[in-house]
Structures are given as structure tokens and as C-alpha cells.
């Protein structure tokens, strides 16, 4: 195995893991917030109707 191949592999894997992990994390945070927003809007609509 060429010298440094392991380090090369780790470097690129970790960077992609970091970037896509962060993107995934942003997506999950947005999903949670949009669910909270939807629930709150429903509550406000019901409150206005009562």
C-alpha cells in the first residue's frame, strides 16, 4: 500500500462526512421547525374560529 494512502482516505472521508452531516443536520432542524410552525398555525386558526 502506498505511504499515506490511509491518511488520504481518512481526510476525504471525514470532510465529506462533515459537510453532508451538516447539511443533513440543517435539513432535520428545518423539518422540526416547520412541524412546530404548522402545529402553531393550526392552534391559532382554531383559536380564531372559537
Amino acid at each position, binding site marked *: 500500500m502506498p505511504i499515506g494512502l490511509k491518511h*488520504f482516505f481518512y481526510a476525504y472521508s471525514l470532510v465529506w462526512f462533515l*459537510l453532508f452531516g451538516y447539511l443533513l443536520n*440543517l435539513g432535520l432542524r*428545518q423539518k422540526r421547525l*416547520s412541524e412546530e*410552525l404548522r402545529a*402553531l398555525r393550526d392552534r*391559532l386558526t382554531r383559536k380564531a374560529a372559537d
Partner: protein
Amino acid sequence: MNNSASDRFSLALGVPSLLILIGAFYYSFLVAPIESSMAMVEPVQRIFYIHLPSAFISFLSFFVVFIASLGYLITRRVAWDWVAVSAAEVGVVFCSAVLITGPLWAKPVWGIWWTWDARLTTTLILFLIYVGYLMLRLYIPEAQRRALLASVVGILGFVDVPIVYMANRLWRTQHPQPVIAGGEESGLDPRMWWGVLGVFVGLALFAGLLMRQRYRLESMRSELIELERSARD
């Protein structure tokens, strides 16, 4: 921007970013020549193609924090604060990439993971400044006070960026001498530059996508707070 327009905008950044990155990495790994002094550790030298562009993107992101912080202090418009926090988080992610890839490159070349030389130490300080910036935001519940203090830190923190950039010009460092504007003996083979440029453009678009998504999160959070307030009234 409504949801579908925002999705289209994200797609317009994400798809070209991935296509450019695939092409740029293909070129960097298989076409660009190896740096002559590192022929013995050939694959590890290719870490350069992610290490240098990540550093550029983190500098660029912190510059956006600086500009947006100034924008907030001058106009007091909350959108500037959202831009600043989005750029700070993305900058920290790319600075983490620099701090991960640097030691992985250093170990087979220098024989050590880390040394406290000026370039490495100032980069670590830069990372810690912006982690501190993000932590500061978590501990201040009141929005205006948070934005004001964060803007001050965002402006002062940027002072470290030129210091990081100049560190290996001003002091003797273990880190290699600069390849950009580093004097007569600096520079890269033009074929290597094409690889760096391609990865930089691809990562810049990806960083734009991340900032856009983070900004959207901040605007949704603000909307939620407003709705909670009207639900209480």
C-alpha cells in the same frame, strides 16, 4: 422567498456544486501532477486539493460574518444578523475541515500530527473565536442584545484572518511557505492551480447552499417566535 423558490435556489446551487466537484476531483487526482518534493508520499499530497480550498472558503465565510456584522451595527436590520450567524456556522464547518485534513497530511510528511507553529496555532485560534461566537449566541436569550454583541465579536474576530494568512510570511513555520503571493520562489504548477480552482468553485457553491439553508432556518425560527407571541396575546 417562498418554499418552492427557495428549493429551486438550493437546487441551482447544489447540482452544479456536485458536478463541478466531481470533475475537479477527477482532474486533481488523475491529471494534475504531483508536487516534486512529495513524490514519496504521493496520495497524501492530494489532500492539498481539499485543504487549501477549505481554508479559502472559511476565510470567505468569516469575511461575510464581518460584513454582515457591520451591516447589522449600521442598519439594525435583523436579516444582517441572520446572514452573520449562517456564515459563521458554515465558516466553522470549513475551518474544521482544515483542522482535520492538516494533521492527516502532516503525519506522513512531518512525522507529527501537530506543532504549535504560528500558522497552525492562529488557525486553531480562529476556529475557537467563531465557536465562541456561536456559543455566545446560545447564551443570550434576548434577540437584539444577542445580535449586537455577536456583531461586535464578528467584527473583532475577523482580525485573526489576516494574521492566519500572513503567519507563514511573517514567522518561520513548520507549515509550508505560501503558494499565493509568497515571493519569487512561491507558486504552483498551473495544472495544479486548475484543480485547486475547480474544487474552490465547487465548494464555494456548496457553502452558498449551506448558508442559504442556515439562513432559512433562522427566518423560520423568527416566524415561530412571532407566532408564539401572537398565540400568547
